[in-house]
């Protein structure tokens, strides 16, 4: 510029120059944004890879478990067969009663009562219910017998099924029903 040049343009103020510098720095810093985004993206890709890898591992584990389960199906089948058969047999087993046990129970329970005159018969119905019929001299003795039967834990649903008084012979005929608990 010539020595005798006179610059008529106004000079930038200090503030304007500072702003300009700041903008310049900001533009430089902003250039790092895509780099930062790339870094974050790469980080996420790595994390995704790790999760995907775990998914693969779990899938393999589940496949192994399924194979093991298939190998052990036979145990499941055996247990299922036993459970099913036992369920089916339960109502039958419940009726598996040794008649001698019932006879003994009745005889023992009655023999202590002198006014129970006789036992005339025993029956069993298809639903498993037992009954016995007999004769008693008094109602009172009969009620004692019923009470004793009711107290017996092996007998359930003890009922006096029928009762009748014969005036001529002065005896009370009765029939008692109950269930014998097997299980």
């Amino acid at each position, binding site marked *: 510029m010539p020595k005798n040049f006179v610059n008529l343009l106004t000079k930038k103020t200090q503030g304007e120059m500072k702003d300009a510098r700041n903008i310049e720095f900001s533009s430089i810093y902003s250039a790092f944004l895509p780099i930062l985004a790339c870094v974050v993206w790469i980080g996420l890709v790595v994390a995704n890879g790790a999760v995907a890898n775990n998914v693969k591992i779990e899938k393999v584990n589940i496949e192994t478990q399924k194979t093991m389960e298939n190998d052990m199906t036979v*145990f499941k089948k055996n247990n299922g067969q036993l459970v099913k058969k036992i369920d089916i047999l339960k109502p039958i087993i419940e009726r598996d009663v040794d008649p001698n046990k019932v006879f003994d129970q009745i005889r023992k329970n009655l023999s202590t009562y002198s006014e129970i005159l006789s*036992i005339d018969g025993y029956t069993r119905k298809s639903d498993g219910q037992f009954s016995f019929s007999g004769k008693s001299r008094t109602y009172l003795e009969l009620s004692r017998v019923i009470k004793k039967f009711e107290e017996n834990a092996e007998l359930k649903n003890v009922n006096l099924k029928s009762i009748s008084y014969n005036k001529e012979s002065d005896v009370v005929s009765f029939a008692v029903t109950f269930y014998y608990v097997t299980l």
Partner: protein
Amino acid sequence: MELADRDLKTADEVSGSIKNSKKKDFLSVVKQYSIPLISVLLFLGIAVISIFHTVNSISDNYKQLEKLQATKKTNDDTLKKLNVLKERDATTISDLATIDEIVPSEKTKIVGLQEFIQNKTKEYNLYLKDMSIGEQLEKISDGTTTTKSSKLATVDAKGNPISLTENSLRVAPTSAKIEGKFSDIQKFFADFYKVNDLYIITTMNLKSSGSIAPAEITTSDQTWTMDITFSKYAFSEDFLSNETAFTQIPISAVPNETVIKYLRDRYSK
């Protein structure tokens, strides 16, 4: 003149300087704003397209992982239970063998009670008045279509409903009419109950020919008449061949311990 030329020249120079200055300012503005603008656009582009996509992918994978882990846990529980079943499989097989022994398949030839009844009545001086052998297996129903003797109760002794076994079991009822002393009938039953087979006394009607005091029943010579029906049970082929039904039973299902214990005590060799 010289002075005028010099002034003109100076004016041209100043004008050029102003133009240069404006050009520099424009370049400076472009420099200052384009780089951040491009950077921000690139950032947003990467963020929107790649990062969001990857985050979504992570989220999906994580959800899948959670599901797989839940499945794995369920499978682990199943395997634990299966291992328990594996451990007790020998006992299960033994129990099944006992059941198969006493309740065979309907195709198995059921050895009848005929021989036993004939031998024992003879042995204990009982009079076998009549006998009908049930070697033919019948379907069990709720009692509406089959014989009364083969009917199963629909409620148990406690009044609870019991499952019908119409499709699973077959029954062979054997009826007999026996006469004799009460003590001999007791001996017959004692031997009958020792037979290692499941025979159920379905119905019984034991009547004395006269009145006997309870204490004298076992010693009395009084004659008793007994109408009795025994039932022999067998599993139907349809039931046994349907293995899918067995595998469908939950792994956690446990056979009724009371019944198992009863069968072991009574029938295990």
